[in-house]
């Protein structure tokens, strides 16, 4: 067997904005939004961005392996938080992957994810592609209505692949259906994009690929065409001779179109339900087209992500507050109060000293007495030990724990009050006072079980920086026995 996909994972933010709320707030200006006001779209919490979603999706994928460390990490997005501070390196450190891993940021195209995957599969090395997108659209725009936030991850390699890579093909064409030269996207007429873009460019690339691979279009079991145009996949499929039943749902009603993450999100969704022998055709459209063809193998049953697309879809909280969505996406200038005026400078030299804690959530384990602690300090915290320089790095990111103490603070500044925080006691030792994210009112108590997640801790609007750290999230699982 050749090379192909070895694993996949996904992440969709829990918040799902109800589209009728967007329509209700904006139809006074654009009545056509009423027709789109159905279903829901995913929305990042205030402390989520492309990197934090990427960490979740990659973690979801890597959970399906026993200690896999991909030698290359491609991170694809058009909405990276940093234009110049390598986003994939932050991702890599948060995943605590080996520092020798090749890390690459790929951006500026809706094809960023598919092109990365193609580069890996056509190249020599094994690796992982993480695609993540958090697009901002103007208030009241169709993009705001139709897009969603999400991330997906795919690992590639040889050996027991779950989907064999049969071939790929690319076409570059500066067909400008939309562009982002400034803060927001600017697009051209939908009908033109469909007729001159989707229906001309995609068939050309796909037909060439299928011919190369000696595969008939009718044999495609899963056809992925990421688009916010509801009828485009059907039209393209018809032109190519792909069965209508093969079209993979764009999840417009549940997630929205997640930009550069959408192709891999749909691929992950297809892989979840695919059966051995089935063909998956993945396309990506944007200044041209990528097409990749896979055949699902018998190994598909042996891989399970922690959550997958179906699991991520199921973890949802309906959001009916459109004003909150505007605030979270910095689309309205909110009064933060004087406590929000505090300077949030990051002292980069200090950050550099604590990267193992801040990014990788590493604590320490004492060689002398076995005590586990976070953060790692010079002396062991065990009052009966206090050994010097005795702590080996000890990972906490995959630990679970329980809430020891907590509060909901309405005095301190928080982008989404109240600020929940408290002391967490980790299974296997270690204790830390930390923020809780996405707590539902009444959903936390001493003894609540938690997992930890890489999130944005603070934004520094004065300098365009943002601080990350790990936060605890309430698990809906019973406490372990004993």
């Amino acid at each position, binding site marked *: 067997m050749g090379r192909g996909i070895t694993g996949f994972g996904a992440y969709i933010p829990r918040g799902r904005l109800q589209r009728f709320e967007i329509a209700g707030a904006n139809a006074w200006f654009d009545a056509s939004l009423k027709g789109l006001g159905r279903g829901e779209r995913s929305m990042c919490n205030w402390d989520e961005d492309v990197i934090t979603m990427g960490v979740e999706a990659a973690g979801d994928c890597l959970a399906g392996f026993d200690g896999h460390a991909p030698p290359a990490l491609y991170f694809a997005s058009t909405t990276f938080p940093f234009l110049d501070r390598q986003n994939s390196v932050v991702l890599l450190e948060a995943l605590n992957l080996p520092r020798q891993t090749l890390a690459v940021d790929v951006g500026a195209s809706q094809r960023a994810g598919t092109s990365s995957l193609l580069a890996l599969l056509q190249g020599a090395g094994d690796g992982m592609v993480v695609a993540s997108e958090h697009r901002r659209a103007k208030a009241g725009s169709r993009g705001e209505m139709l897009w969603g936030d999400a991330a997906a991850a795919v690992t590639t390699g040889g050996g027991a692949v779950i989907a064999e890579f049969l071939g790929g093909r690319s076409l570059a064409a500066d067909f400008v259906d939309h562009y982002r030269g400034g803060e927001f996207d600017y697009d051209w007429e939908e009908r033109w994009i469909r007729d001159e873009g989707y229906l001309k460019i995609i068939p050309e690339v796909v037909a060439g690929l299928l011919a190369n691979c000696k595969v008939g279009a009718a044999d495609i079991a899963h056809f992925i065409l990421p688009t916010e145009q509801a009828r485009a996949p059907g039209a393209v499929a018809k032109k190519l001779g792909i069965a209508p039943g093969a079209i993979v749902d764009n999840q417009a009603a549940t997630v929205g179109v997640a930009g550069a993450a959408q192709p891999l999100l749909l691929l992950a969704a297809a892989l979840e339900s695919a059966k051995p022998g089935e063909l998956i055709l993945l396309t990506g459209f944007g200044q041209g087209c990528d097409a990749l063809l896979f055949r699902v193998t018998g190994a598909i049953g042996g891989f399970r992500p922690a959550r997958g697309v179906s699991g991520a879809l199921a973890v949802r909280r309906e959001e009916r507050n459109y004003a909150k969505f505007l605030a979270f996406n910095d689309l309205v200038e909110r009064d933060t109060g004087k406590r929000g005026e505090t300077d949030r400078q990051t002292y980069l030299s200090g950050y550099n000293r604590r990267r193992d804690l801040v990014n990788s959530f590493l604590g320490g384990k004492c060689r002398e007495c076995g005590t586990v602690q976070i953060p790692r300090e010079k002396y062991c915290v065990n009052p009966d030990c206090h050994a010097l320089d005795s702590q080996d790095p000890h990972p906490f990111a995959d630990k679970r724990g329980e809430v020891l103490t907590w509060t909901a603070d309405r005095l301190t500044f928080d982008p989404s009050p109240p*600020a929940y925080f408290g002391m967490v006691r980790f299974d296997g030792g270690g204790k830390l006072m930390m923020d809780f994210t996405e707590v539902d009112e009444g959903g936390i108590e001493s003894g609540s079980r938690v997992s930890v997640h890489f999130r944005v801790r603070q934004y520094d609007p004065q300098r365009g920086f943002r601080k990350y750290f790990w936060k605890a999230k309430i698990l809906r699982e019973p406490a372990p026995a004993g």
Partner: protein
Amino acid sequence: MAQGIKDKVAILGMGCSKFGERWDASPADLMVEAFEECLADAGIEREAIEAAWFGAGIDAFHVGASAMPMAIALRLNYIPVTKVENMCATGTEAFRGAVYAVASGACDIALALGVEKLKDTGYGGLPQRSRGVENDMYWPNLSAPGAFAQLATGYRARHRVNKQDLKRAMAHVSVKSHANGAKNPKAHLRREITEQQAMEAPFIAEPIGLYDCCGVSDGSACAIVTTPEIARSLGKDHLVAVKALQLAVSNGTESSHESWDGSYLKTTRIAARRAYDEAGVRRPAEEISMTEVHDCFSITELVTMEDLQLAGEGEAVTAVLDGEFDAEGKLPCQIDGGLKCFGHPIGASGLRMIYENYLQLQGRAGARQLTNPKLGLNHNLGGFPHQNICSISMIGHM
């Protein structure tokens, strides 16, 4: 073998400004107000002071750095002045410096003064501020009520106390302090409240509501200390002497080691044991006449009663609701209104506590005078339950 501080140093005089929202008073104005009362009480001239300790908790926001703001405000005579800062325990820390200086024999008369000007921030509560380069990277952006609210959840979990019962006991703590504060002309908050008001007030940091929080105040307090011999030579009788002066500072065990469950103040327990040993107190609940404790929040006072061994472990809720620490109870707490109602100008608070017990011991506490008190305990706490500084001082008759 060290002998401890007991009866080595006497309080020659004390002063305390009116606490409150002193919009018209600068830090220097507040310092002078306390200092003038203190000098008059001591019956000495400024020139007799040989050394001074100056406490301010959040100096970046008001008085500015170093010991100079006090030396300038009080026109001290180019004597050594040391600036101290130990968060909310700063006032007691200044007192400790002056007392130790006298006890060492390095000087005869020393001054301790604490001040805080909190009402120049433009908003309620303590100033939002940096916790330092390292802590700012990973600490929650916690407020003081947010930190101490966790003491309530920790206590509740440990002792399996019902939410409502604990909240009612917390309300009782505040109702009592408001009743006491109403009788104190220098207090910031001088209005009685009902248990219902306290129970129904909006949350600041669950389960801490508005009335569970102490006043955020401007104010200053100070003490002049000397040896008992010099005090007597200056014509003083009914001397009030220092019986114990202890400090316990967290070393990270509470925040990082599993041995602490968040239900109590480890530092208070340690400092109390040491203070009782130093003062020769064997049965604190019987020997102590009154306490001024660090009631930054009602829950802190409640838990502190146990940590000081004035209530059995897990029994503070009952003891509080039984009125044991009310003005008429067997061991009155915060007879001056406490931080809750006298107010909490951070750097001044430790000295304000000592001031009240000093007045009580001298029978000069006016409408709130207790009957024949002999020994007063002051408990001053800086920081958060999981990382803090606890200072305990005890004063009594020679």
